[in-house]
């Protein structure tokens, strides 16, 4: 049986239910046992009339990014979908409305743009929707049903997913949508299928200790928080981090956790740090503009050595920037963005499963090293859906507090005692004999204000060096290498959400015969310099692709290693094109070859 690898794009105007249709599609297919990677693009407008695209790639085997060409395009709004007809491959399907409301000028209908190699499927979406529901709101579901019927997916999993989607609404709403789906489905089944898009069988997982689910990065963060027994959360809505708070708002009260929407980010981080002081596992979530607002309070977290976890989902910047577009341009802000020497831990997961791990580990590290921990995601990863295997048993500790013991408390408790591992035993409010005062001022071991030069040097060293221990952290993958082993022509050093594209590019390059490997760096601060240097030693040319303009990661690496890399930066607001990266890799492989030949010639000359 052929492996399934289908990418479906649904494109419409905001309000058409584009994203909702994509959501049902990916949930249903994940339920059916497929691997799913999905990413939506939606406009910054309120509901307005902007373009929405939901892209879902469904596969039998694990893949790492979306494809550049889709197999099916569903148009819910021609004006938005027409520019995307070209992304459908030859013999792929284009599904569209063939009974629009009003007349259109020549060329304004999508059928005018379908190339001879693509297969057109027109259907009266709106009419069917209105017929079934007396309204046009179910057009997306009708189109989805048609798609499912056409390429032969199981209707039952869709019924369940639709019921889930509309749970809590009137039963009539669910019934109407199921009816709309079925009408579309029946029509799709009846339609003579001419494209070559087919669905194979899904593979069943064998891991008994894991549950397979489909979720996006933000949901994985939430799952990580929940498995790490989060207690308090304070947040302020901001795209694209809002859904973390929304989900936690549902989940946390169920296990006695508390969540509060504060009036702004300033208040959110303040409350988070306050809760951390009180010993609660706590977090907040924001994006670049909110992180900027939090900078001052994070400085307090550093100097006061209090645990807090900040989930940051990056979007296009600077300032309000591109609220609904993805970018990796808050690296500098996360790593450096505080007044004074304010080093903290920054983790950047590269996929949805990583979001889960990093979220849980962030709490452990924050407590263990008594520091704010930023988990750096971006819109692409926050909203990208993947099927993941999550352990049935939580792998995270309930607390990693280095609690002040009886002997620590005897004879004047030193909140900032210099110890071997540099993390001081911590007393929590309510603990007997542990009373102390926290301040943003520089302080001595007791926590009392001190402006002595030696104290500032020692405390600065303490705050800096205690974090280095996190580099030897056994429980988290700080760096990991894929592809060819040993010396390679091109080594790709990637980080964050973009690493999926790096992997796809690496695999493609290897297919072309280029010796190539890719390494991901998950911990951005402090930086795992040892393995990075090793990787650079093994790589003829080091290729560092990332989604920001300045090459923030490349600069970080170059600054830390004093070695040069090939920085490759793009800021399209969308994921990087694998094809474009491949062009660059080929170019670098040629440079490497030329150098090799040069070297050999030189060597021969020498010998002669």
């Amino acid at each position: 049986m052929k492996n399934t690898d289908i990418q479906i794009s649904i494109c419409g105007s905001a309000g058409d239910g584009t994203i909702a249709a994509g959501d049902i599609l990916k949930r249903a297919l994940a339920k059916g046992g497929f691997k799913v990677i999905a990413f939506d693009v939606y406009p910054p407008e309120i509901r307005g009339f902007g373009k929405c695209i939901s892209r879902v790639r469904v596969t039998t085997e694990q893949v790492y990014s979306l494809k550049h060409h889709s197999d099916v395009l569903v148009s819910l709004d021609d004006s938005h979908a027409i520019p995307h007809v070209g992304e459908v491959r030859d013999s792929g399907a284009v599904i569209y409305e063939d009974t629009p409301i009003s007349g259109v000028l020549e060329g304004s209908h999508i059928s005018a743009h379908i190339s001879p190699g693509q297969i057109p499927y027109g259907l009266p979406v709106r009419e069917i929707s209105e017929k079934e529901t007396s309204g046009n709101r179910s057009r997306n579901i009708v189109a989805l049903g048609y798609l499912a019927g056409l390429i032969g997916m199981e209707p039952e999993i869709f019924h369940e997913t639709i019921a889930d989607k509309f749970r809590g609404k009137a039963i009539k709403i669910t019934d109407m949508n199921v009816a709309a789906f079925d009408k579309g489905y029946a029509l799709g089944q009846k339609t003579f299928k001419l494209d070559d898009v087919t669905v194979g069988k899904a593979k069943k997982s064998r891991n008994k200790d894991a549950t397979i689910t489909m979720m996006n990065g933000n949901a994985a963060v939430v799952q990580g928080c929940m498995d790490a027994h989060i207690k308090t959360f304070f947040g302020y809505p901001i795209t694209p981090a809002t859904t973390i708070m929304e989900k936690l708002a549902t989940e946390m009260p169920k296990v006695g956790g508390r969540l509060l929407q504060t009036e702004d980010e300033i208040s959110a981080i303040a409350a988070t740090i306050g809760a951390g002081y009180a010993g609660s596992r706590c977090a907040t979530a924001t994006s670049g503009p909110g992180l900027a607002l939090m900078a001052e309070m994070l400085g307090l977290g550093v100097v006061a050595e209090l645990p807090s976890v900040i989930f940051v989902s990056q979007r296009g910047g600077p300032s309000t920037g591109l609220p609904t577009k993805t970018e990796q341009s808050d690296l500098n802000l996360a790593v450096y963005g505080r007044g004074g020497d304010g080093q903290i831990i920054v983790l950047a997961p590269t996929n949805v499963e990583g979001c889960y791990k990093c979220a849980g580990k962030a709490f452990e590290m924050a407590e263990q090293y008594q520091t704010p921990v930023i988990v750096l995601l971006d819109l692409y990863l926050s909203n990208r859906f993947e099927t993941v295997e999550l352990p049935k048993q939580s792998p995270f500790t309930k607390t990693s507090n280095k609690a002040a013991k009886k002997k620590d408390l005897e004879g004047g408790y030193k909140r900032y005692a210099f110890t071997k591992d540099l993390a001081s035993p911590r007393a929590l409010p309510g603990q007997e004999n542990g009373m102390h005062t926290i301040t943003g001022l520089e302080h001595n071991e007791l926590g009392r204000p001190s402006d002595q030069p030696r104290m500032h040097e020692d405390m600065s060293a303490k705050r800096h060096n205690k974090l280095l221990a996190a580099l030897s952290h056994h429980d988290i993958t700080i760096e990991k290498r894929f592809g060819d082993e040993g010396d390679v022509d091109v080594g790709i050093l990637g980080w964050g959400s973009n690493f999926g594209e790096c992997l796809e590019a690496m695999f493609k390059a290897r297919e072309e015969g280029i010796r190539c490997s890719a390494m991901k760096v998950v911990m951005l601060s402090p930086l795992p310099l040892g393995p990075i240097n090793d990787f650079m030693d093994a790589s003829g040319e080091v290729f560092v692709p990332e989604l920001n303009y300045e090459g923030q990661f490349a600069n970080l690496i170059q600054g830390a290693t004093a070695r040069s890399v090939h920085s490759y930066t793009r800021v399209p607001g969308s994921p990087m094109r694998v094809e474009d990266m491949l062009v660059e890799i080929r170019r670098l492989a040629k440079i490497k070859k030329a150098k090799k030949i040069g070297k050999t010639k030189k060597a021969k000359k020498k010998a002669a």
Partner: protein
Amino acid sequence: MGNISTKPVYLEDKLAEIKSDGKLEYRSKALPTWCPGCGYFSISEGVTSALNNLAIKPKDTVVVSGIGCSSRFPFFVNTYGFHTLHGRTLPVATGVKTANDDLTVIAVGGDGDGFAIGGGHLSHVARRNVNITYILFDNGIYGLTKGQTSPTSSLGFTTSTTPYENHDRPLNPLMMMLSFGSSWVGQGYAGDPGHLGEMIEQAIAHRGFSYLHILSPCVTFDKTDKTYGNLNMQVKPIPDDHDSSDLMAAIAMAQNVHKPPLGLYYKEDRPTLADGLDEITQQSGGGKNVVTAKAAE
């Protein structure tokens, strides 16, 4: 509210009337991007009518906003506009007005922008009596970020961040603004565009800080609470015998949140920020106010 008469209306008569009226001059070319049915359309209509009726030229008007659905407003009127940062509307507006007294400055914003993130600024702009108009679009929800609870969300209201009901008691903006010292406080309703237009006109005409609170349904994210259907049943006009110079009566009336009275609550004439600044200039023995001098030319 709506034409319940069966008497026919003739389009060409109506169009001629609207064209000669001049209101359209205050609209931008671009169509508003609010969700169809949004109460903000009503406010937009009211503001343009009011400016037109008061004969304030578009060039002399500045509309300042922050972040949120309502803060898109400057894009839909044909005046000077300033779309600033979340919650920071009022300080920017104060700066604009202080720089040029001749401008009519209208600050617009929503309940989240004004009473959550920007709440700290409210009290100060009110007590200083900056001569600007603050039009507060209250839909009791965060629309732009797709439906979270706001400071004016009702108790028990369910949103995506209060999935188990909102337990935070909503603010009483009218009482706050009355107590902060707003020199003009009134309330309108998007579902009653006629009355709303009159209120906006009065608010702009007032010399001093005027605060107009507008109840406006979010048709997309609030299907249960502050809907047109519910508000239509709740709102009522302020009784004719209300004395708008009586602050205590106004505060008492502001308590009636279940049957919100529509109209002018309180009005007081007192020196504005600019008056005070002029006074200080004089006291310090300095020269003539630069702003006024410019205007005099």
